[in-house]
């Protein structure tokens, strides 16, 4: 047993639902107890779909347990076919039905329905949502697609986009546009936007574009084997990756990788002097492996951040994740426990977090700006406007999204200049962060003595100061730990909040190294000089 408050991924049958809901003409009969229908609202609410997910649940109850549940499943499958007349059906069990050991595949097979029925085996107690989606799509391709003569013109399939995918809708549109610039048309994009009949004719494409390895790699490998189609290994997230992707496609097709880049603005935006202050900003990355690996490249080579931590929650991709992290001199964090992620972020003291919905909240708790780069996400990250992550427009979107939460250049300089200003002090935070500005009271006589004890007077209470959370032991100094003198503590407060945590850490590290027991203002500045780059 493992105590869990938050999960990055749902159970595997939710992954199967993401495939079924992304498609039309496919129906999923899920052997599941009453209550499992909660998953419908992920699609109708978070993704705002205007139809019910094509899923029939058997919704068995306690009184059905025993021989009855198998009949319940058969009736549900028969009724679902009669009502929805799908081109194909997938059948499977949720976690509870897995325990009662009816065999959905065998039961549905015995019904002899007039459409292909594909059984899914999704081990709910070992695997998770992404595996469920990948395996479902894989089984669909295995059952339905077959070798075919290639189309006359050069075509490809786009693999991996599903319902409830982070920006999948617009990524498919953007990549389709990109391929169009090279003279390639899309044969089938699947699962999102396809039908079982489309899966049947996937074999006629010349190659496959694997957009999301998490949900499409199984299918890509299967099609490579059965239809002889090579698939792309580069995911076009970021400018460099997009260009590499175009070269990869060129090598597969013999077409020219040179395309119109006139709408690509990230490189100039990033080169313009207004972006100079972004140099070396410390960024922490967490999410699914594909998005994090791509984001690290953008952060380091296209925007000029320093990547100070990276990791992913999907163990399936731990190996490429570790390799990518190594290139930045980092140890990858592979975990699905958000408390570990929170600890790692606090320890790294970044100035920007790029992560999921959960990291957004960690950022809020720690007072660190954050932008979302990966699932799981909430309703606000299924926007009405066009906002891909992939291709050239995706790069533009990424630049805006990541930079927006940061304190902008001029604001940062003014904060430094007037850092003791009563209404424009660092604790007030940038205006667009939300929350009301915290006007600092000007104390009649600053009770400085109490500062030395670690307890700050109320006027100096610093809600955005993350250094305390980062070093909980700082309030109760351990024996042998350097102690901050009052003046040094005051000087530390003058440092802008977004670098204060790092400055505190560095100074303490420097003091320990030098065997200094008491940190004075002098120590603070000696440490600053020591760590100067």
């Amino acid at each position: 047993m493992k105590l869990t408050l938050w999960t990055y991924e749902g159970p595997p049958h939710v992954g199967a639902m993401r495939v079924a809901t992304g498609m039309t003409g496919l129906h999923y009969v899920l052997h599941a107890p009453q209550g499992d229908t909660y998953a419908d609202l992920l699609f109708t609410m978070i993704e705002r779909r205007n139809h019910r997910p094509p899923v029939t649940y058997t919704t068995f109850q306690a009184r059905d347990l025993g021989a009855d549940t198998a009949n319940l499943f058969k009736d549900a499958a028969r009724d679902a076919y009669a009502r929805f007349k799908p081109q194909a059906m997938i059948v499977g069990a949720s976690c509870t039905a897995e325990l009662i050991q009816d065999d959905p595949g065998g039961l549905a097979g015995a019904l002899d329905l007039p459409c292909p029925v594909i059984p899914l085996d999704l081990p709910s107690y070992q695997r998770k949502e992404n595996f469920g989606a990948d395996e479902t799509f894989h089984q669909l391709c295995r059952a339905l697609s077959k070798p075919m003569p290639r189309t006359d013109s050069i075509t490809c399939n786009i693999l991996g986009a599903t319902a409830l995918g982070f920006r999948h809708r617009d990524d498919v549109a953007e990549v389709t546009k990109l391929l169009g610039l090279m003279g390639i048309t899309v044969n089938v994009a699947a699962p999102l936007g396809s039908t079982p009949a489309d899966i049947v004719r996937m074999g006629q494409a010349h190659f496959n574009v694997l957009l999301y390895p998490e949900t499409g790699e199984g299918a890509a490998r299967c099609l490579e084997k059965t239809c002889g189609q090579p698939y792309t290994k580069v995911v076009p997230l970021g400018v460099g990756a997009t260009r590499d992707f175009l070269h990869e496609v060129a090598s597969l097709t013999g077409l020219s990788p040179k395309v119109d880049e006139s709408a690509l603005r990230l490189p100039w935006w990033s080169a313009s002097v207004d972006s100079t202050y972004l140099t070396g900003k410390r960024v922490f990355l967490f999410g699914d492996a594909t998005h994090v690996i791509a984001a690290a490249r953008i952060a380091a080579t296209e925007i000029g951040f320093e990547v100070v931590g990276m990791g992913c929650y999907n163990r399936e991709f731990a190996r490429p994740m570790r390799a990518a992290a190594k290139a930045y001199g980092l140890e990858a964090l592979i975990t699905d426990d958000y408390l570990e992620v929170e600890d790692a972020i606090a320890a790294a003291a970044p100035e920007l977090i790029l992560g999921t919905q959960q990291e957004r909240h960690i950022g809020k708790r720690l007072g660190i700006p954050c932008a979302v780069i990966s699932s799981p996400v909430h309703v606000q990250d299924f926007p009405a406007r066009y906002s891909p992550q992939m291709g050239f427009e995706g790069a533009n979107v990424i630049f805006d999204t990541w930079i927006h939460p940061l304190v902008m250049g001029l604001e940062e300089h003014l904060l430094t200049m007037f850092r003791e200003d009563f209404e424009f002090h660092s604790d007030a935070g940038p205006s667009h962060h939300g929350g009301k500005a915290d006007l600092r009271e000007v104390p009649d006589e600053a009770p400085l003595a109490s500062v030395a004890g670690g307890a700050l007077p109320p006027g100096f209470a610093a809600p955005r100061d993350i250094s305390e959370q980062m070093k909980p032991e700082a309030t109760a100094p351990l024996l042998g730990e350097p102690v901050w003198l009052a003046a040094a503590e005051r000087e530390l407060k003058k440092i802008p909040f977004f670098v204060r945590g790092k400055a505190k850490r560095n100074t303490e590290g420097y003091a320990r190294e030098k065997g200094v027991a008491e940190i004075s203002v002098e120590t603070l500045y000696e440490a600053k000089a020591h760590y100067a780059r």
Partner: protein
Amino acid sequence: MSLDSPALAPNRGCRDTPVLKERGQREVFCGLTGIIWLHRKMQDAFFLVVGSRTCAHLLQSAAGVMIFAEPRFGTAILEEKDLAGLADANTELDREVARLLTRRPDIKQLFLVGSCPSEVIKLDLARAAERLSGLHAPHVRVYNYSGSGIETTFTQGEDACLAAMVPTLASTTARELLVVGALPDVVEDQCLSLLAQLGIGPVRMLPARRAADLPAVGPETVFALVQPFLGDTHAALIRRGARHLPAAFPFGEEGTTLWLWAVAQEFGISRDHFDAVTAAPRARAAKAVAAHAATLNGKSVFFFPDSQLEIPLARFLARECGMTPLEVGTPFLHAAITGPDLDLLPEGPVISEGQDVDRQLDRQHAAAPDLTVCGLGLANPLEAQGHTTKWAIELVFTPVHFYEQAGDLAALFSRPLRRKALLSKGVAA
């Protein structure tokens, strides 16, 4: 409206209406969802679900942003190795509980909540609760109930939870009123204040905000339900010798008045005093409802089953807002509990219990109601087809009981209709 003889209302009511009982696919939450409001109400309780990743994902999806506020609930996710040998599961559970209680020493009540997987593998959580109660006594009391989908639907989770607490309540011979059902704090305070003004007391609440305030129960206890889904708790209290005061549920001006009057009569309160205390809030409630009744009057409404609140709400909408219920679906129908509301609900609607969602959707399409009350899995798809919907879960999560919320309750139903009118004007312009 007549306080004394609701049965003499001009129509015959729905008490004897044959009920359409259906079985099939159900589009409802399981009882685990109750944790989301119960953990807010019981401030020193922790709810530990023993279940699968699906259970954890359900709670996270249903709790929305609340999940980020260090909630006092969690899921002990069963893993492959727990399924292999059952003896192991108890050790595992003891370890997880011990770790949890070390991390949260403020916890006084721990609920082990059963789920579908734990019920199917017959993990004996009742014995585990007993064992853990012994281990962690006297600091923490450990209870057990099932919120599994195979046994409970949505609000029934609260029923199962409260029913599990009843046998452990202290005994008393005092004559006390017990108000049963979790209410938002603000509503609970209004309820207590009205009862105090009427001169009724002492009044105890179940659930209580803290373990130390848990009520006692005995043969002189009378209890009134403020929620219609408390069938098992009702039965458990009767087994302890307490007596139920049947009444319409306190929704709207009429419901609240009838509910209070049922209690007042039991405690021998005079009509004059009752009228003096309730006159002002009754007038306020009637006025607030009237503002929305203009929008609702003459409109038809169709209820999909969700929370068991459907019958009293249909009664409120029909009698105080002038709506015509076409079908009132409820996951379960406790005639003994919702009887007073059924008596008042004007004859006409189909009363359905249980669900076959596809067939019910067919009926809804044929009936073409002005307003459809349904869950979030159905709401947007129905809106896209041109129906106007009110999503039902909000009726459980929003303060809607008693006089001061009567206007808010009506507003929840009028808002989608007003919005539809506003948006169509915009498109036409």
